[in-house]
């Protein structure tokens, strides 16, 4: 177990094979082989939604149409997450190589990096890297052109269909699914939208091969993952760790000795109280480890000085602002949750009202149009259930 905490520089490190050499190697293989490897590897999306990457690439490759797109989702906005910024700063070639392999496999000729507006300072650096990437593509006879598309301050654009709408000049509101972007994406064409880290990981599969990749992590959650650690910790930062980590180990390594709770997966994730650290592992839900939590890798640590009421209120403030506002459960639900806990705290509403609010989050979870509204339930119920007294007194 201890080994898992060693810094594995799978994502952020330098290797004998440069990313563009990895890409060159991949481009000599048949696209269907790359796809089947990717599926076999079990790589799941690293943005938090966790869809099987190989399947996504397979659908896009099979989709009809001669115009296809690859979009790198760099709209990282989940509170507590900063890994994509680090990746783009330190190892952008790996991202571009991942995009290049995806383009080769799907037949896309155009790629975009949707970069959140808050990271605008990365643009000159990225444009230099892209120029070099294009030279490599030309050398490898890969007809693929990438450009940066800048966001302007909208967390919801991290949702893939909202991102596509934003690129098309519409409001960044999520679309109805089906149809899925792999059939009907940017401008109605087949599009792969992948998180920054996912593209790097796809390139890792090409570099080290399926078997080595599967050795990392646990069943159903293969590979390694970047964790953004912040909050009450003496060692905030980015750590490249394997899936399968228990929270107990994590807190022993990163806590400040007085850890009360860990928020896994950002404001859209779960808040795990001290008493559940032992029984919780980080990974995607699967048969092996019942309590595994999906995550974009955000780990926020709270010690006993923190009011969980303030924490929850902060999240709800975030959601009611960042919701696109389109669907009833999210637009109104987020507001109700916030004014609700405020009223209970003030004494204007009985503590029993918290049950009504928990029921509301159940409704939001099953009726909201996109992941934003569906995920509010996660932090709300985990904080209210585990820290009920702090909501009332």
């Amino acid at each position, binding site marked *: 177990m201890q080994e898992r905490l060693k810094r594995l520089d799978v994502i952020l490190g330098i290797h004998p094979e440069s990313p563009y050499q990895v890409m060159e190697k991949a481009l000599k293989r048949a696209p269907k082989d790359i796809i089947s490897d990717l599926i076999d590897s079990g790589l799941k999306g690293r943005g938090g939604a966790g869809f099987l990457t190989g399947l996504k690439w397979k659908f896009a490759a099979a989709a009809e149409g001669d115009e296809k797109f690859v979009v790198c989702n760099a709209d*990282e*906005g*989940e*509170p*507590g*997450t*900063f890994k*994509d*910024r680090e990746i783009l700063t330190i190892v952008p070639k790996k991202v571009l190589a991942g995009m290049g392999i995806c383009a080769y496999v799907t037949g896309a000729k155009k790629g975009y990096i949707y970069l*959140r*507006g*808050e*990271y*605008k*300072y990365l643009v000159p650096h990225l444009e230099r890297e892209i120029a070099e990437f294009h030279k490599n593509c030309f050398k490898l006879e890969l007809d693929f052109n990438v450009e940066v*598309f*800048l*966001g*302007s*301050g*909208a*967390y919801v654009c991290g949702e893939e269909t909202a991102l596509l709408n*934003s*690129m*098309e*000049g*519409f*409001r*960044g509101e999520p679309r109805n699914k089906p149809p899925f972007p792999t059939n009907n994406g940017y*401008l109605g064409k087949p599009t792969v939208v992948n998180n920054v880290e996912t593209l790097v990981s796809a390139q890792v599969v090409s570099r080290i091969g399926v078997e080595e990749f599967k050795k990392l992590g646990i069943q159903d959650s293969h590979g390694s993952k970047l964790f*953004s*650690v*912040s*909050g*009450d910790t003496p060692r*905030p*930062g*980015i750590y490249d760790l394997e899936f399968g980590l228990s929270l107990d180990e994590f807190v022993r390594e990163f806590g400040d000795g007085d850890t009360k709770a860990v928020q896994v997966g950002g*404001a859209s994730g779960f808040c795990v109280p001290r008493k559940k650290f032992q029984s919780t592992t980080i990974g995607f839900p699967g048969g092996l480890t019942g309590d595994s939590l999906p995550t974009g890798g955000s780990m*926020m640590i*709270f010690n006993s000085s*923190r009011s969980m009421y*303030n*924490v929850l209120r*902060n*999240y709800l*403030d*975030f959601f009611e*602002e*960042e919701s*696109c506002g389109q669907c009833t459960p999210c637009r109104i639900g987020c507001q109700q949750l916030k004014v609700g806990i405020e009223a209970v705290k003030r004494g204007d509403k009985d503590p029993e009202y918290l049950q009504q609010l928990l029921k509301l989050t159940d409704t939001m979870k099953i009726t909201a149009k996109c992941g934003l509204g569906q995920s509010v339930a996660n932090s709300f119920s985990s904080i209210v259930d585990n820290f009920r007294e702090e909501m009332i007194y």
Partner: protein
Amino acid sequence: MTKTDTMVKELVDKYGNKRESLLPILQGVYDIEHFVSDEAMVSIARNLDLSSADVYGKSTFYSFLDTVPRGKFVIRVCKTIVCDMHDKNQIVDTLENILKIKVGETTLNRKFSLLYTNCLGWCHKGPAMLVNDDVYTNLTPESIREIITDYKNRD
């Protein structure tokens, strides 16, 4: 053609006149004028063959595309949980004192606007803020004073 029309025309030449060009054009306008004015929106509507309401609806969706005038330097302080835990309130108080404005306001000389924003992706080095496109982290009241003084000395 007015000054606004010229500015928009140049952006249209650069980014195109399709709907997909809308967000880059709005960003271009914002970079030059520090807000998206109604004239700019009308000009964009004319060039992209959209309605002015349509352009307005898209602009107001994004937190960074203000349709009210902002100062030359727009300060956005992160208010999300980790920065909040690391005393962003003290940072905001310091800024309000130095600039003599409250959050949401712009200084009379139109040089500074002070706003809140959500997670900037620097949680391990909070509190953090943006001043226009530049990010500042590990903020303290002292470092704030230095930073603002530097901006005050810029034109």
